[in-house]
């Protein structure tokens, strides 16, 4: 197995699939990339058993089809140091020796048998949908931050995708905050729903942000398959029933506050510096057309209070929130003004962008308060 390829081209492609490889693997072969040379094309695979990524590149020159796995870390570290030069790989698939020559250098390392590399799941009974890469990247960005980390509640660690003939909805929640991101410009022939895990979404987010392509998504009961440009990603879906999120979104919210997003964001950021640094709790006190933000850290006698003018319709109320949640949410909204709807101090607050320019986009963010004394 022999091929010559530009170092930067190879490195760029390896880096796009490197994120799949875990730092600690029970199966040593998962530390490797799988290289397969066939029909003058190289297919490189990385996997953690749950998620598998594959890129296909065409080398400048290729001889003797074959396959081998090569330790990812050494390979990537080496390629990083090269300028853009042609690198030639000469691999003996019997002795598993990999010989790399680049410029005046010669490097040898030993690979592993490709037969030992885990097989990627085959896709049967799939349904497919095509999504614009920017739209998908947007949907991931807007929802991923709200996913949970609780290993006891795996379903909440992913993003719930609900496909219907009218629209597609992406939902993420950790039971304290929730984001519902609906796109009406995206439709599916069939109605379906599945939960995508966090890791592949993170990988997709990084790659998609710079691309302008169509992403073909295929899915069945157990896996989802994303393909775009020369990249394929297969991930196992999170098994389980996603909670009925619509039931927890309060329908009657008589108290409506509208405020300039940036002003609120900077105030919360400042006031939360004075809040307890593990709970990040701040208080909202709304009365008339005035919002008073306050925070305190009793242990250090820190205290902050800020007054903001807002437009408010409803009863006077006092409600406590984790400022971290609010900051994340406000950072993921682009409009100049936002609207915070509330019903009672012990019920969820609903954050929505006001006058969203994108008519196809429907964002709803929900944040649970903290139980205040009194």
């Amino acid at each position, binding site marked *: 197995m022999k091929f010559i390829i530009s170092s930067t081209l190879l490195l760029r492609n390896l880096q796009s699939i490197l994120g799949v490889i875990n730092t600690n693997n029970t199966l040593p072969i998962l530390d490797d990339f799988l290289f397969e040379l066939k029909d003058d094309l190289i297919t490189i695979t990385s996997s953690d058993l749950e998620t598998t990524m594959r890129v296909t590149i065409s080398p400048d020159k290729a001889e003797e089809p074959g396959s081998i796995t090569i330790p990812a870390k050494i390979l990537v570290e080496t390629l990083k140091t090269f300028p853009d030069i042609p690198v030639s790989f000469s691999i003996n698939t019997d002795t598993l020796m990999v010989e790399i020559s680049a410029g005046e250098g010669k490097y040898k390392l030993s690979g592993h048998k490709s037969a030992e590399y885990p097989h990627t799941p085959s896709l049967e009974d799939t349904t497919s949908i095509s999504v614009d890469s920017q739209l998908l990247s947007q949907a991931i960005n807007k929802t991923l931050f709200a996913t949970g980390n609780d290993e006891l509640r795996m379903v909440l660690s992913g993003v719930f995708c609900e496909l219907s003939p009218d629209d597609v909805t992406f939902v993420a929640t950790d*039971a*304290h905050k929730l984001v519902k991101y609906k796109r009406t410009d995206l439709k599916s022939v069939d109605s379906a729903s599945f939960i995508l895990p966090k890791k592949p979404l993170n990988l997709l987010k990084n790659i998609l942000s710079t691309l302008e392509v169509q992403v073909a998504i295929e899915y069945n009961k157990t896996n989802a398959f994303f393909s775009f440009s020369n990249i394929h990603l297969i991930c196992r879906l999170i098994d389980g029933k996603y909670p009925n999120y619509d039931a927890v979104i309060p329908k009657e919210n008589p108290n409506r506050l509208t405020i300039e997003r940036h002003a609120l964001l900077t105030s919360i950021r400042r006031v939360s510096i004075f809040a307890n640094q593990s709970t990040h709790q701040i208080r909202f006190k709304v009365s008339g057309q005035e919002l008073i933000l306050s925070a305190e850290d009793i*242990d250090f006698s820190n205290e902050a209070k800020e007054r903001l003018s807002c437009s408010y319709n409803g009863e006077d109320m006092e409600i406590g929130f984790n400022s971290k949640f609010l900051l994340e949410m406000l950072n993921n909204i682009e409009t100049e003004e936002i609207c915070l709807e509330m019903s009672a101090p012990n019920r969820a607050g609903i954050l929505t962008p006001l006058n969203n320019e994108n008519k196809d986009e429907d964002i709803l963010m929900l944040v649970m308060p903290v*139980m*205040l004394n009194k």
Partner: protein
Amino acid sequence: MLVSRNIVHLDMDTFFVSVERLLRPELVGKPVIIGGASDRGVVASCSYEARKFGIHSAMPMKMARTLCGDAILVRGDMELYSKYSHTVTEIIAEKAPLYEKASIDEHYLDVTGMDRFFGLQKWTHELRESIIKNTGLPISFGLSVNKTVSKIATGEAKPNGELYVGPGAVQPFLAPLSIRKIPMIGEKTYRLLRSMGVVTIDTLSHIPVDMLERVMGRNGIVIWEKANGIDRTPIYPYHEAKSVSTENTFEQDSIDIVRMKEILVKMVEKISFELRDKQKLTSCVTVKIRYSNFDTHTLQQHVPYTAFDHQLIPVVKNLFDRLYQRRMLIRLIGVRFSSLISGNPQLNMFDDNVEMVNLYQALDRIRRKYGQKIVRRGVAIRNSEIAK
């Protein structure tokens, strides 16, 4: 060269008894014992009249009653005492520049440098007068150069007195006193030193420090320093509690698991209310059991920050089940919440509903107004209590 310091040690006289007497004047002048009424309880506090009979705190109740059959037994109400203790702390916090709450009835104050503006003895005397006037409780203080000497001075000033030991008077003050007066010397150390022929602090202060170190290790050095009136420990400003806990010794060792779980529920209710009341959250739950042979075991578990009974009760029950492995009688069970942080419980959109949160708030309001025991879960109430 260390700047000479001025440290005040303020100590309430027979604190629990004094509070009881304030509410029940008929107890004045009589031997009063505060503590668990059962034979297995210990004396928490006793009046000077009771001390004449040889009763002292931490003595088993049974022994105390044998010594003085006429003594009036009072069950004791820690909630009430904490309230008075808090009032005292508030008065001190208002006046003193730096203070440390060492226990429910003791405070250390660092008043170094204040003699430039006030007469120190006069200032401290006025502080003491103000506490007596505002609470009606007797209090004594010692004023000296460090914590140890001040504390010993308070002991000498009691009851209801004050004592000033100036920088030059430390050695002569300590010298004739029994080594027992040094706060660090308990029963064991006292016996050891007595067996060496040491009776007074004077003798102790003249023993070469190396020798004490050989006998008692590092503690020997500290004891020697204290005997010489040396103590560099600073005043630690008052800190919030690092944990909340409660425990219960059974009147009779028991294997009644059902009952024990009920008691655990009651304990969780009690201390989780304490958390919510102080606006604290816990992330570490510990359960403790002591078997009849005094073998003590604890088991702890980390949980997401919370202060809700319904989240803590299952954790505590589960820990208890895992902990109770030996089929042996149990003497004591206890629950502790630690790793506390300030904050209010974060609501969960799937597990917490508004009705439940409103219920918590309503119950807590009732508890704040009428006392913590006024509302409880059904399982936490004993049949005998209902009969009352």
